């Protein structure tokens, strides 16, 4: 499948209730890019992800994800099937869930759902990803008992098992110690290079992210601005 733009946003205005977060904002990301997204707290970085995921409808403007206009529920679902998403790990894990199941749920909506149980192909895909991420020895472990670094590796495996063309990571290193933080970006960077998956990563750690990102963007004052670019063309 050809891919011109991973994300194409034109004249986006969106917010909560009547409070605008973005006003006439534009954003364009090519396929295969590794984009770092920075900005102060509460400025709208996660909101931008919600728009890309079709969870928040724009007040004005157009949004296209992987060439699909995000207008109808069918189009939104079509785009979502190709997106891997790692939300902020701000929920204290109370639910017991094995590493295996935690990765398997990443296939929900793309190949199984309420009345379609996980197939043999789903299970084979999970086994393959667990192997690739070195998680096979932990497959029956409770996710809650893993270290922060392993939990993030599981989250990335869950995104990958969906076979996405775009991965959105929301502050993946926030609750990790310094040493473990260093593991996450290289894994993402390697996946970006080897599989051509587009990565968009929100982080407060601009310095570290800049080392891996082909483009850095900043969300500020209801706009999205490019602050550096190493890819070509920018």
């Amino acid at each position, binding site marked *: 499948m050809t891919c011109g733009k991973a994300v194409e946003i034109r004249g986006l205005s969106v917010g909560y209730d009547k409070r605008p977060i973005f006003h006439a904002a534009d954003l364009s990301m090519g396929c295969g890019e590794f984009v770092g997204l920075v900005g102060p707290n509460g400025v709208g970085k996660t909101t931008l992800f919600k728009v890309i995921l079709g969870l928040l409808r724009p007040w004005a403007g157009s949004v296209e994800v992987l060439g699909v206009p995000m207008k109808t529920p069918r189009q939104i679902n079509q785009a979502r099937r190709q997106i891997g998403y790692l939300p902020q790990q701000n929920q204290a894990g*109370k639910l*017991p869930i094995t590493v295996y199941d935690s990765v398997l749920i990443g296939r929900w909506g793309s190949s199984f759902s309420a009345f379609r149980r996980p197939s043999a192909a789903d299970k084979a895909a999970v086994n393959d990803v667990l192997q690739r991420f070195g998680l096979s020895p932990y497959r029956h472990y409770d996710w809650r008992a893993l270290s922060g670094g392993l939990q993030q590796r599981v989250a990335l495996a869950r995104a990958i098992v969906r076979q996405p063309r775009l991965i959105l990571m929301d502050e993946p290193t926030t609750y990790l110690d310094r040493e473990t933080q260093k593991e996450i970006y290289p894994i993402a960077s390697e996946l970006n290079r080897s599989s051509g998956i587009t990565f968009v990563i929100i982080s407060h750690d601009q310095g570290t992210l800049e080392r891996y990102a082909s483009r850095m963007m900043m969300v500020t004052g209801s706009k999205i601005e490019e602050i550096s670019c190493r890819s070509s063309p920018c």
Partner: protein
Amino acid sequence: MSQFSVLTLPFMQRAVVALVFSSMTLSLLGIVVLVFNLAAVRFALMHMGLLGATVGLATGTDPTMAGLAAITGGAFLLGPVSDRTRLDTGAASAFFMTGSLAIAFILLYKANIPAMDAFSVFTGSVLMLTPTDMWTLLLLGTCVVLAMVIWYWEINLVLYNRDLAAALGVNTRLIYYVLLVFLGLAIGIAMKLVGALMVDAIVLLPAMVALPLSRSLRQALLLTSLIGGASSMVGIAASLTWDWPISASVTIAGVLAVFVGQMVQYVIRRLRMQQEDLPHASKGSAKR
């Protein structure tokens, strides 16, 4: 004649079936309460039950049915009100709890109703169950189990991470609201079975034991159901053997199950600390 010969009496058979079945099915909702931290919701719904009972007494309708209707209505309203007002469900519960209590007291005063008549909705007796009550309970329990089976992966996702579930396309709001309504109905039914003060014995205690001991939602559901059923049976047996009130016996059995569960967890943690061989992870569910 042994103490257990009372089990041949129809009202006693209904009581046993109702207690064991509700402990095995309605207890599954305890997992939802614990994971979403919905403890306050239970109290809000109970107080709405009090308001319903008061309205029932004031209007001459059955206070128990009116209480149940109010609980169900409250469960329907809680989710949407919480979403619209952007309050978390706990805060919305406080709003409902205090509001319904205040209105109930004004009604009690104005309609000259003895407060104890309204508070009678808080006291239940499993021995007074009618066949209709029992069939209603069986229907609700079956619906809860069916929802857990059919929506297993969706519920798994919503309980694991609501943001992730929504991003994957799960209708998180629908599932959350349905679970809240089931919880409301379960609390209403459990109040009729064991009284409001012991609702937790049926809805919460089994899940409190099972969650820390489980490694997956599937395990947690099975374990909760087994522990719920077992503590009910032990409670009923204790009640018959020592002539204790049946609700209190079932509750004591549930409390003992929590105690035993904590002991088992402690032993497992100690054993794992001794046998730990993986540097970054521990198998099972030891708390971090």
